[in-house]
């Protein structure tokens, strides 16, 4: 039952997603297809069969435009193409390709529309289609929102299939039209000419002919039952390099003739530099040059550390922070923004909340979540070479398209003259959705024309200039009747995250900021009287997307407060959630996680279990955390997770991503916060920002469910429910309700 995808000739060349999306959603506002970016620069005898497959006499290259941040994106994208193309991912090259509108991210736009991901109604589909068109217009080639799997699932398989079928056509010509195409088949990078097989013709030998023919415009996708790579435990393409120290990350790259450098700018993010005195730094060993930049100073040295040390020796006179200076004022700004004027959105307003809260027993609570740094283990860096009117950049980034535009503008060169080489990244979690470190490097390189400059941030500079996770506050009110929840009113205040973030790319978002209520309003609970309101707080620090974005704060608020209500009502946390949920995949993850943990059984003395559920990025996830109350504090013993992801494409990666998401969610909830004093970040290294270490890591059991119709991502969703499941478990074990992150303000952990 292979699925037939019909592809118009021109649109096939630009990547079939445009048409696929169009067919699925009916229409596009913006129809002109982007060019195939690989066609510009093809050597003779090379054929770019789609923007994702490049073949020449020397080999096959799969283009994987979503950046690998450690989430295994290169392997997954390669496997999707390889499955249909019929090649072994370990025998082909994989390259992130150039920044290009052809690689825009369709799935990401689905998170930006005011329809819950469970809503498949016509209005929701049209809105998503419109958002796709807008996104295509601005060419957002972004890695984020756990969209790599959903965005790539059909696009890349079709790309692989088109390439395969076109190569079969080329093989017909190769054999002098002696064998009809329907007798041909493929195996491991070869077109086979007969049932008996023989050696077949390697794809590489067909590249020359393939350049001369029209690509096919109709392909069958393999049914799942015939998959050879997808759905099976795959060895990641980078596993050996990453286990032997041979993997080169952006920070490791060496370019002939390059110099080492670092930059110091105002520790008050976005503040000015009034003056500086580098007299001491100039005479230090291994220092080559001090370079004044816009509101910053760069140091060029013989090694990175000499540059770090020299910046420490420079005396600066910095300007004030362009936002509230003290942490308590940030909290106050949030508390003050629950007003009509600051109301940003009210996407959910079911029943009559005011009436419901006017009678019956009322529960009220206030919740807080701090700013949080991304702090991936690899500090950010970039190498830039400026030559006459050309710019060459080597860096790890999630936003290649934006980066090129901005760098070109800064250097005063045309975008065509900017070459970007996207590098492997040592973790990101949203960090590399920003590009200030690259722009600083461009500035430095402009002062060092002809010499490649490698600029590395110290850990401290990286954390001071992170754009952190939003700070947020929530106020909940709820009521129950006869042991059942019948009203929940949640008000959430935070800075406008999307607007802060895209504002730095010169874009604006009219209307409400979807992040403010993400992970709260869109939860498919059928509570009779149910309202979620978002308030926008101003004058706060600039913020950005942090693994699971809005849900990282809002799931904590929603699921902890719901738990409070359920306990107050005397109901069972699992049963009551099931009673309130009609969304079948969501019920399923709760039921399964309950079975996994044997929910309802006695956990034993001093132990407690907490449950939480979240629907984030279209993926329902349910989690149960078990803790023990010890003399020294709380020990997290065990976590069970069930997630509905539609189709499991890579079981090993699924397990790793879920476990990593749990460690991330629990670790930051336990002991991390980013606070400001005098406008400066106070936690600038891991001694003050530990998260989870191995001795605290619980046993984690995970299960993937495959009942949904869509393929959804797994990098971010497990993060959302981790903090509330832990808070709920601590309540179960100790009777203490924690309403503020980090939890170690209220309990100790062992």
């Amino acid at each position, binding site marked *: 039952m292979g699925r037939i995808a019909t592809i118009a000739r021109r649109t096939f060349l630009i990547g079939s997603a445009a048409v696929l999306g169009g067919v699925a959603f009916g229409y596009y506002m913006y129809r002109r297809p982007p060019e195939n970016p690989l066609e510009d620069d093809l050597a003779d005898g090379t054929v770019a069969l789609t923007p994702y497959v490049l073949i020449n006499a020397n080999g096959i290259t799969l283009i994987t435009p979503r950046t690998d941040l*450690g*989430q*295994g994106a290169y392997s997954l994208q390669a496997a999707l193409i390889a499955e249909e193309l019929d090649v072994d991912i370990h025998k082909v090259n994989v390259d992130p390709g150039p920044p290009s509108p052809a690689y825009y991210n369709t799935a990401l736009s689905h998170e930006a529309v005011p329809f819950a991901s469970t809503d498949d109604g016509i209005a929701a589909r049209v809105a998503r289609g419109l958002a796709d068109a807008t996104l295509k217009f601005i060419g957002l080639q972004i890695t984020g929102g756990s969209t790599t799997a959903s965005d790539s699932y059909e696009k890349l398989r079709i790309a692989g299939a088109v390439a395969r079928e076109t190569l079969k056509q080329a093989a017909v010509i190769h054999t002098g039209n002696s064998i009809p195409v329907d007798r041909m088949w493929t195996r491991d990078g070869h077109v086979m000419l007969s049932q008996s097989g023989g050696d077949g013709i390697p794809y590489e030998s067909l590249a020359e002919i393939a350049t001369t023919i029209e690509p096919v415009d109709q392909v069958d996708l393999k049914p799942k039952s015939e998959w050879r790579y997808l759905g099976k435990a795959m*060895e*990641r393409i*980078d*596993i*050996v*390099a*990453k*286990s*032997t*120290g*041979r993997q080169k*990350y952006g*920070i*490791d790259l*060496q370019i002939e003739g390059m110099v*080492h450098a670092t930059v110091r700018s105002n520790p008050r993010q976005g503040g000015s530099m009034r003056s500086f005195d580098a007299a001491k730094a100039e005479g230090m*060993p*291994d220092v080559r040059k001090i370079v004044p930049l816009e509101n910053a100073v760069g140091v060029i040295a*013989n*090694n*990175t*550390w*000499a540059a*770090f040390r020299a910046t420490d020796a420079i005396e600066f006179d910095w300007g004030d922070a362009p936002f509230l200076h003290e942490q308590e004022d940030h909290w106050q700004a949030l508390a003050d923004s629950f007003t009509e004027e600051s109301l940003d959105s009210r996407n959910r307003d079911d029943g009559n909340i005011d009436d419901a809260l006017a009678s019956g027993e009322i529960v009220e609570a206030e919740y807080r979540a701090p700013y949080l740094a991304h702090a*991936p*283990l*690899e*500090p950010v860096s970039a190498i830039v070479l400026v030559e006459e009117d050309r710019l060459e950049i080597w860096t790890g980034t999630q936003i290649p398209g934006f980066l090129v535009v901005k760098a070109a503008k800064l250097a005063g060169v045309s975008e065509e003259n900017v070459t970007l080489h996207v590098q492997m*990244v*040592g*973790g*990101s*979690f949203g960090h590399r959705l920003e590009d200030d470190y690259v722009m600083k490097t461009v500035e430095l390189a402009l002062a060092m024309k002809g010499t490649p400059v490698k600029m*590395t941030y*110290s*850990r401290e500079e990286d954390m001071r200039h992170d754009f952190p996770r939003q700070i947020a506050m929530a106020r909940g009110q709820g009521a129950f009747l006869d042991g059942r929840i019948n009203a929940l009113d949640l008000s959430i205040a935070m800075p406008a995250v999307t607007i802060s973030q895209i504002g730095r790319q010169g874009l604006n978002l009219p209307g409400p900021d979807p992040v403010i209520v993400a992970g709260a309003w869109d939860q498919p609970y059928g509570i009779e009287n149910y309202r979620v309101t978002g308030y926008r707080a101003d004058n706060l620090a600039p913020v950005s997307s942090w693994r699971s974005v809005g849900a990282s704060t809002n799931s904590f608020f929603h699921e902890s407060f719901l738990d409070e209500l359920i306990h107050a009502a005397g109901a069972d946390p699992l049963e009551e959630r099931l009673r309130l949920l009609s969304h079948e995949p969501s019920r399923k993850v709760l039921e399964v996680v309950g079975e996994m943990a044997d929910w309802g059984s006695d956990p034993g003395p001093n132990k407690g279990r907490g449950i939480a559920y979240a629907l984030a990025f279209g993926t329902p996830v349910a989690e149960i955390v078990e803790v023990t109350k010890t003399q020294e504090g709380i020990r997290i013993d065990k976590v069970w997770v069930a997630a509905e992801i539609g189709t499991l494409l890579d079981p*090993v990666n699924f397990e*790793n*991503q879920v*476990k*990593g*998401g*749990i*460690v*991330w969610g629990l670790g930051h909830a336990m002991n991390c916060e980013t606070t400001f004093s005098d406008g400066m970040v106070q936690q600038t*290294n*891991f*001694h003050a920002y*530990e*998260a*989870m*270490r*191995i*001795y605290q*890591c619980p*046993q*984690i059991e995970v299960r993937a469910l495959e009942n949904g119709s869509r393929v959804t991502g797994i990098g971010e969703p497990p993060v959302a429910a981790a903090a509330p499941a832990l808070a709920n478990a601590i309540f179960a074990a100790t009777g203490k309700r924690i309403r503020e992150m980090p939890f170690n303000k209220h309990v100790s952990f062992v």
Partner: protein
Amino acid sequence: MMLTVNGKDHDIEADPDTPLLWILRDVVEMVGTKYGCGIAQCGACTVHLDGQPIRSCSYRLGDINGEITTIEGLSSDQGLHAVQEAWINEQVTQCGYCQSGQIMSAVALLSAIPQPTDEDIDRAMSGNLCRCGTYPKIRAAIHSAAAKLARS
């Protein structure tokens, strides 16, 4: 001054205050050893000094008196170290940036305690942060490397 890295002597010209980490990365140009924090908090820079694990970001070049082994020196033409094989078989890695340091700490652990318990692992590996959360896989890989080394 002379510095022996993975059995090879290097004549280094640099300020003796420079941390070993940056000598390895920027002067010797062996970049398998990673920079994460610079203050002995993350373990990404772990190498061996005469077989003992040290945080190379916090050792001055001038204070090094002994032989350095880095992740690049762990495997030889004969093949990968058993710990590396276990890391590959268990598919420990996510971003991988911490893993050079994790592997160097694990190798040192197994030479001190050939059959470590989970508590031994926690104690020896707690100086190594993994932001991607590969800890469960690290535990499994150390146990499987220990089993393999015991058989050989």
